[in-house]
């Protein structure tokens, strides 16, 4: 894992990608910092981080697009997979390398609050800033895990980047969408039924087994019907509830105010873990085609 991590980190800075990511990020962060802190004399730095979150949409696809797709295209995955490394080790090593580039960038941006501290009469809220950074880092890790996953689906960097961008954009607008979706129980039921159908289709297409698909269909239908009969209130506002599971951005708001609460930390870590795990499964599955 360490070998893959080191190689990958070096590869980032052997190509322009690492520099583009770091440079562009710091440029935008610098602009925001200058406008909202330096020029307006505002002493809260966490606001800069909050307004920077949109940058993930554009930079994460660039950071993650070649992580796995390029190995597939150049056939270097044959070297990695036939080596004694485990697939988990390979994927985690790559993921941590992308996170590493992100961490390096964040460390450079620490310069901004340091600059502010020269002018702060009453001292800065360093703990507040630390909290903001922890949240920002974890949110970035979650975005990167999405990019990692999409990079494992194709052998074309560009397609991986576009898919990642689309997915992140969807996550981004989720909160707006969630506000305006219908919240009555019937639409909740329809939504859940559609999800169930999607799940059954997934089972069918990944196993090609009619019996397994049928069993999962019966199970899903039973769960939906029972829920609807016995707990109708469950379906009220269900769509918004389900959509909010994927809302990475909203969970940052606490950090932005300097509040370090456990639940978003756990959320981000498990979200990242889930996508890293999916990536590992995707690569393991390739052997069985």
């Amino acid at each position, binding site marked *: 894992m360490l070998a893959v991590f080191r190689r990958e980190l070096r590869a980032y800075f052997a190509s322009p990608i690492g520099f583009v990511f770091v440079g562009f990020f710091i440029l935008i962060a610098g602009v925001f910092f200058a406008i909202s802190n330096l020029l307006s004399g505002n002493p809260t730095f966490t606001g800069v981080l909050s307004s920077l979150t949109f940058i993930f949409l554009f930079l994460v696809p660039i950071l993650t697009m070649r992580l796995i797709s390029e190995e597939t295209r*150049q056939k270097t995955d044959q070297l990695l997979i036939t080596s*004694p490394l485990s697939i988990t080790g390979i994927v985690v090593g790559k993921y941590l390398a992308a996170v590493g580039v992100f961490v390096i960038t964040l460390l450079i941006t620490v310069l901004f609050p340091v600059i502010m501290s020269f002018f702060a009469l009453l001292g800065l809220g360093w703990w507040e800033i630390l909290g903001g950074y922890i949240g920002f880092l974890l949110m970035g890790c979650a975005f990167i895990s999405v990019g990692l996953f999409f990079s494992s689906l194709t052998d074309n960097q560009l397609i991986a980047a576009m898919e990642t961008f689309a997915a992140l954009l969807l996550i981004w607008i989720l909160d707006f969408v969630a506000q305006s979706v219908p919240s009555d129980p019937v639409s909740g039921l329809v939504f859940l039924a559609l999800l169930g159908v999607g799940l059954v289709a997934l089972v069918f297409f990944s196993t090609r087994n009619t019996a397994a698909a049928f069993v999962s269909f019966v199970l899903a239908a039973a769960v939906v019907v029972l829920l609807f009969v016995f707990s109708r209130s469950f379906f009220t506002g269900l769509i918004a509830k389900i959509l909010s599971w994927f809302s990475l951005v909203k969970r940052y708001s606490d950090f932005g105010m300097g509040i370090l609460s456990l639940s978003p930390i756990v959320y981000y870590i498990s979200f990242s873990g889930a996508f890293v795990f999916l990536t590992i499964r995707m690569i393991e599955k390739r052997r069985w085609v």
Partner: protein
Amino acid sequence: MIQVENVTKKYGQRLAVDRLNFAVNRGEILGFLGPNGAGKSTTMNIITGYLSATEGSVKLDGHDILEEPQAVKKQIGYMPELPPLYVDMTVRDYLSFVCDIKGVPRSRRKDSMERSMEMLKISDVRGRLIKNLSKGYKQRVGIAQALMGTPPVLILDEPTIGLDPQQIIETRNLIRDLGREHTIILSSHILPEVQAVCSRVLIINRGKIVASDTPENLSRGMTADNRLSIRVAGAEAEALAVARRVPNVLKAESVGSREHGTVDLVVEARKDQDVRRDVFTAFAKADLPLLQMKSMDLTLEEIFLNLITEEKEVS
């Protein structure tokens, strides 16, 4: 050492490898021979654990590749069809990375790298980026990569592709040398190569083994010992007439004249009849000196084509 049992691989509905059974003994150099798309690379990918077989098992010293992947993969050096090179690295960094992922201990690393760079004559490009190397160099870096940590088993998929004739000869000699310390499986669709290097040949066609033997036995088994090629000093018509009078000769044909005043004939006798003595006496009596006589061996090329066409007729 390597046991391949009943290995089948299906890509969707297409059968790429069909119930393959063979074993490779320690110190053997086994050659996979077959036309493009015969299933050679797929088989190699299964042995090295890159792909999983739909059915069947691969064992190395009794350890299953799927059950104990780490232990088994440590024993194998693999050079796939396309050398798996990171083009943005220098040769030295790349080989060092390969040592890292193969878990070669630090103490042995330098030695292992130097030795294989020496063997493959790539020491002079160690500091260059792989993307700037010529195809022949890339191919050799690919082979060097497989040698890192001196694994007991080497699997080389078309190792001499993309090399110039000089390098091909060197690489073949290298593989022969390596065969003293390693068990090797190599694939090729070039017959003389397999003939020159391998101690045993598996001929694969459409995912099935159609023949398995030493190169010598393969050609002997199919030798047309009832066919003779002779060179006679004399006129064509006369020579043909003499040859056709020899008992047990079915057919005599002229294949032209290569030397002034002589004619080359191919004489086909009844099966299991050695007509060499009779041919000699007949021509001696007719006062037509025989300048040359040899039985016609089939080349591996002919055997290969025979096997494949035979199979087509059966199916």
